[in-house]
């Protein structure tokens, strides 16, 4: 029997404009990014606003926190990446990636790098300390809409915009920078991607209303799940590796 989920906390008018991404932080904080150009940090116990981080010139389209909850990274529509210090609640660094070259950003598990997707299809990896581009993984030329690190830090996966008949999911090896495998199952744009905790499985959700589970190690697809009636915009895997949530 599925457990009942109850809304534990609702915050109205948290942002002045639409909220487009949220990320949990391990220190009981919630980071939200919104169209009103701000990133806000909330305390999850009380629901109070801990701090509001401004500086982006356009709407924020993705936020992510690192493993210990000390940093947060956000990207905005003009491809500016900003790294924030969550403890002091101020900006740590700005990385300007070029006009349309940074879409979503994710921390690497060791918190040293940030990976972003770009409209040219490459996945770029930036260093957190220096803000320089460290590595670039060559994509297939299609907009890489979502990026994920595997928890063991070995792989980066990205899901791409659809070409005429299918959309691909690319899996790169971080150490060598090479493309490891390609998954072609989805018919339409892959909007979100997540690894399981043991880094063996990769879950992807797409506009074609399907969720697919792939085997990251061997490079083939395990299952396809259906049931959504519209675009799947995000997926996440629970820590025990048993459940997948999607929306």
């Amino acid at each position: 029997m599925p457990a009942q989920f109850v809304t534990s906390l609702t915050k109205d008018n948290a942002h002045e404009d639409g909220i487009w991404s949220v990320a949990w932080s391990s220190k009981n904080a919630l980071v939200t990014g919104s169209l009103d150009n701000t990133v806000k940090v909330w305390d999850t116990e009380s629901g109070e606003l801990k701090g509001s981080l401004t500086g982006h010139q356009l709407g924020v389209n993705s936020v992510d926190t690192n493993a210990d909850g000390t940093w947060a990274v956000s990207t905005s529509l003009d491809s500016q990446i900003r790294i924030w210090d969550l403890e002091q609640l101020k900006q740590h660094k700005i990385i300007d990636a070029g006009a349309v070259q940074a879409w979503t950003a994710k921390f690497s598990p060791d918190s040293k790098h940030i990976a972003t997707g770009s409209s040219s299809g490459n996945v770029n990896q930036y260093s957190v300390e220096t803000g320089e581009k460290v590595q670039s993984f060559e994509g297939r030329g299609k907009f890489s809409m979502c990026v994920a690190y595997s928890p063991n830090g070995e792989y980066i996966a990205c899901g791409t915009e659809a070409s005429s008949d299918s959309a691909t999911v690319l899996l790169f090896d971080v150490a060598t920078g090479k493309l490891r495998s390609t998954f072609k199952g989805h018919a339409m744009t892959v909007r979100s991607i997540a690894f399981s905790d043991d880094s063996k499985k990769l879950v992807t959700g797409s506009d074609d209303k399907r969720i697919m589970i792939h085997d990251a190690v061997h490079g083939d697809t395990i299952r396809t799940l259906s049931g959504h009636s519209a675009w799947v915009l995000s997926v996440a895997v629970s820590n025990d590796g048993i459940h997948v949530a999607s929306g």
Partner: protein
Amino acid sequence: MQALLYQSYNSGSDDLRFLARSLDRSEQDIDHLLYSDEEIPHEDSQQIENGEFLSDSFFHMEDVFYSNQWHLSGELGDMEQRVLDRHQGLVEKIDENEQVWKSDDLRFLTKSLNGAEPEDQDISHLLYSDEATPYEDSQQIGSDSFLGDSFFHMEDVFYSDQWYSSGELGNKEQRVPYHQQYLAEEFLNIGYSEPGSDDGLDQESDDPLEFSDFSAAIPSSDSIMPVEVSFSTTSPPVPSPFMEMTRQSREWVLQGLETLVFQILYDLSMGRAPSIDLCCRSKADALVYDEEVGVIRRKPDHAPGTFTRTYRYGNNSASSLHSIVRIIDLIHDNVYKGSISTKRDLFYREVTLFGSQTVIDKAVEDIACTLRVPRSCLNVVAGTRSVVFGSIRLTLKVPGNRNMAGSEDTKPGKTGDGDDSIDKAFTQSEYNMLMAVPSSMDDILRIEIHPQTKFILVIEKEATMNHLISLGICASHGPCILLTSKGYPDMVARQLLKLFSDMIQTGVYAMHLPTEDRGKSASTTIRSQASLNIPILALVDCDPHGIEIFLTYKCGAVLSAYDNANLAVPRLQCIGQIPDDWNSFLRGRDFSQDQGLLLRSSSHVEVQFQDSLSPLTTRERTKLVKLLKRHPFIQRHKGWKRQISKMLMLNRKSELQSLCMEESTTIEEGLQKEKHALVQYLERKLEDCSLWIS
């Protein structure tokens, strides 16, 4: 200048050697005259031979002006003759007792260069542009000191309005000391349009009673430089924060063009590489967003030379000085003869020189901006592609039967049958007739909008418009007017829309358009009691181009900022297509009963629609980001910001064509045929005003 020196010297040279001959009788200290900046070894001047002096001196410059590559004088060739004719005509009108400034001043100049008068130091004062000379010197030179004055001050004199105005003062100039020229009353009558004057174009001054001031200051036919400047009687004129464009007479335009060319000759006489400064329409800091009205405008030139680009001889860019001068020549020709040509036509006159059409486009607009006139005053039109349909009646002039010149034409032999010829030659359209909008607003004699028109719809694509017409939108949804410009709007479409907007605002639904030929007296209007409540709506695709087209109609384009007062329609509202419309399709079947739905969607329409949502290209994304970051209108309107951000987030765009797909299955099932998707969409949008975005 050249032409008038011909008068003095009767030399038949076709290039600038005349200047050499005029100087050849002078001694070697003439080199001081020409080399104000350079050190010239004295022995060069000893080698002076008859007529060769100037060519020697120019050999010291980087460029050889007299070589065969210098076409400039050739390009000016025909223009000289016309300038000559024109000034002939002007001279005849002036009282014989008064001195005509131009020929006399230049005669003076050449006379003094002959060494006939012992005024060497004054000559050097004349020609040294870098020396500051006290004002009193000018009094000593003589009453015809106009040109002396000009050459005193720095070359900024050339650019500033002082130059224009002092030129136009003409015969009055001697009687008025230089520094008082601004305030002279005669000055105001002769052509200088003060910033802030009521030119009838500002929306604030739209007084319904004086309807004939509605479109522009109309030149009257009696004075020589006939431009009326009307000051508002209630308050003193306030300098406008924007550059104002007014229609000017033919004379004014010709004068301005000639002045641009004189600049070159001036440079040459100073021994410098000639250059022309034209307004640069693309400098970002020249633009300012008018908050109240919501229109992008251009700042006025406070100091001479602001926001201009200099075209120098020798700069090998795409638009070289040669092209500019040739274009000025061609435009001068057209305005002089009163013939109208298209931009394409101008291009074909001299294809090898111009190279590409964009050179002409840019140059014509830059010249119009520099002279502060709308492009139509230069007698240049663009081929039009706009089409209008619906409850509107236009009376157009028959092309080819145009009156050749205005009533102030000075060409001898022209019969003065100005007024009758217009009435004989026109075409009248009827309601609900698909009409091509003419290439110039001057061709429209009369406009009549049906007073019961429900709305005016501006459509991006012609295909959509044809679809709507074939679906009978005008019959089923009330009398309406449809206008399309098949993409980015051309000037006439924008002017027409602006005219509609002004007519609606003032409650006029039929009017004659005042034109140069007919003057103010012939305009008649029919008006209703209150202002007509006709919304002006735009139907564009949901993609970056659509949004830009909407913004061009609404706030004006960046490159036409100098003329946006006449072109932008702030009342325009957008009824579609916006990303919020996608919500109904993206929600899935369970929510099909939702009120947010815009059509009763059958499933395959939904699927088709989803398929038609295509991804954005990188260029389109860049354009959207640019719009979000920099466009002043978008920055101030949250609704639009949200829509554009949504488009970026989902990385999708859609076109109106997606609503035009046929539903064939419903007929087979025997159900009553549902209304076409596009019609449904339009209906829903028209009913609910809150769905419109302005």
